[in-house]
């Protein structure tokens, strides 16, 4: 089992979600987050005072998948989340030791 964390542009979120549904991905956890990598923020001016806003709004998708699905999901996210500009985000993969469904205590890939 692998965990995918993808941080993407809010404007691409709907397309990514639809594309993932098309390839059969049902479950995901979505969080509105703020942060920045290499992308610079912007400045706002209120009555002459300038504020640099460098933490920008992003969407974080989290999902845990059976190993067989991981490559397809990664490809789909890459294809749909890309705008080609700085600030498109990142995908992190990590191994997951165990998953347990709370309702019936199923374990492993069955619980996904």
């Amino acid at each position, binding site marked *: 089992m692998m965990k995918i964390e993808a941080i993407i542009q809010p404007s691409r979120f709907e397309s990514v979600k639809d594309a993932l549904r098309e390839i059969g991905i049902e479950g995901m956890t979505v969080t509105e987050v703020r942060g920045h990598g290499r992308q610079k923020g912007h400045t*706002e*001016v*209120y*009555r*002459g*005072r300038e*504020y640099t806003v460098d933490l920008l709004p992003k969407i974080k998708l989290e999902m845990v998948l059976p190993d067989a699905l991981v490559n397809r999901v990664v490809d789909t996210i890459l294809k749909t989340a890309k705008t080609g500009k700085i600030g498109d985000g990142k995908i992190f993969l990590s191994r997951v030791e165990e998953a347990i469904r709370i309702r019936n205590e199923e374990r492993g890939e069955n619980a996904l």
Partner: protein
Amino acid sequence: MKCVGWKCSFSFILVLGALLLTVAPLLAQQTPASSAAPLTIVASAATSEIPRAVNEKLAQLDKDVKAAQSSADNAWMLVSAALVLMMTGPGLALFYGGLVRRKNTLAIMMQSFALMALITVMWALVGYSLCFGGDGHFIGSFEHAFLRGVGADPNPDYAGTIPQLTFMVYQLMFAIITPALITGATAERMKFSGTVLFLALWFLAVYAPLAHMVWGKGGFLNASLGGKFPTLDFAGGTVVHISSGVSALVCALYLGKRTGYPKQPMPPHSLVLSFIGACLLWVGWFGFNAGSALASNSLATSAFVATHFAAAAAALSWSAAEWFKNGRASALGAISGAVAGLVAITPAAGFVGPMPALAIGLIAGVVCYWMVTKVKAIFGYDDALDAFGVHGAGGTIGALLTGVFAQQVINPIFGAGKAVGALDGHWGQVGNQLMGVLIAWVFALVGTLVLLKIVDLLTGIRVPEEHEIEGLDITQHGEEAYNLES
């Protein structure tokens, strides 16, 4: 009937002319007979009856006309009073509420609202009397304490056609908004208890004397009721805006900067609220300025127009300055400009024509922009929401420009045919205005400083740093403006 403008009146005149032509010969023939008839009556028993009847009729008509005028004036003044109250709540409360950080929203709104209640009660007890009772040079008397003698009869010294009760309640609304303006400088760090006590004392010790000096009978600066330095202040440039603006600066200096200012960003939490507030202020200002004619007459119209024009011009000039400087015109800039223009036209509203009003607005927009962006940064005081930069500076410019642009064709306040401002050739008025401005500045400065010292000893002024960081909504009032998850 479809009939447009000149065509309609033209055909009407034609018909009227034709009628006159046909009736004229008839009239000429009848004249001898008709003039003979009343003569016989006058000569008979009714010698004194008919003139008396006519006189009674005339007297009755005169009374009716006066009653009609009084009704019209009273209607406008009651509406104006309501408009001016709307400037504080929700106008100013929203304007300031949007400019603070979200943790201080309710606190700043509550300060305005508390004044709506507190000043009203104080006004009924002694406030009105201290402002408009008696004929002292510096402060009113206790003549009208507990509103004694304030009823349906007009007070001819101030407004001869409306009940004094109307005049009283209209002036009350000014006394509410003035201290509320100061809260813009003390925002986000002043204790609620200290704020309430300070502003209540400030109303008694600074507002009341100044209002009496400028507007009260016999006041030292009164322009029409026997003042030594006749200062023109139609709707409160000195009494409202200089007094609150300068006091705001003193408060900002005394309190010190907000924790983290100017390093930490403190952007407005909702310019949408501020936007609505500013638009309500603009509309309410018609009651403030046009209502200050104290009648529903052509002077009220003149003040209404001047007010509107100045606001528009200042919104444009502030935006233009900003565009020039930053390459963009911001919503906050446009609404701040409009408020600056409204402040500056306040003393001038009933003395200047529409073109000078545009000029006053243009100047005020640029100067206030410069005050809040440059001057504040240079001196480093934390006038949180720019109460001084907009009201102090705008009020001062407005008061001085009133001396320049006031014209007797608009308002012959010094008597028919007598020059009023520099535009009429009376440059001395600029000197009078300067005197009024100076006195208002010094009075507000000293009064505020003394009161702050007293309140600091009694209740304390500033919240502890941890309360400031947590926010005044929770620490001062035990509630939050936005419980979005609930």
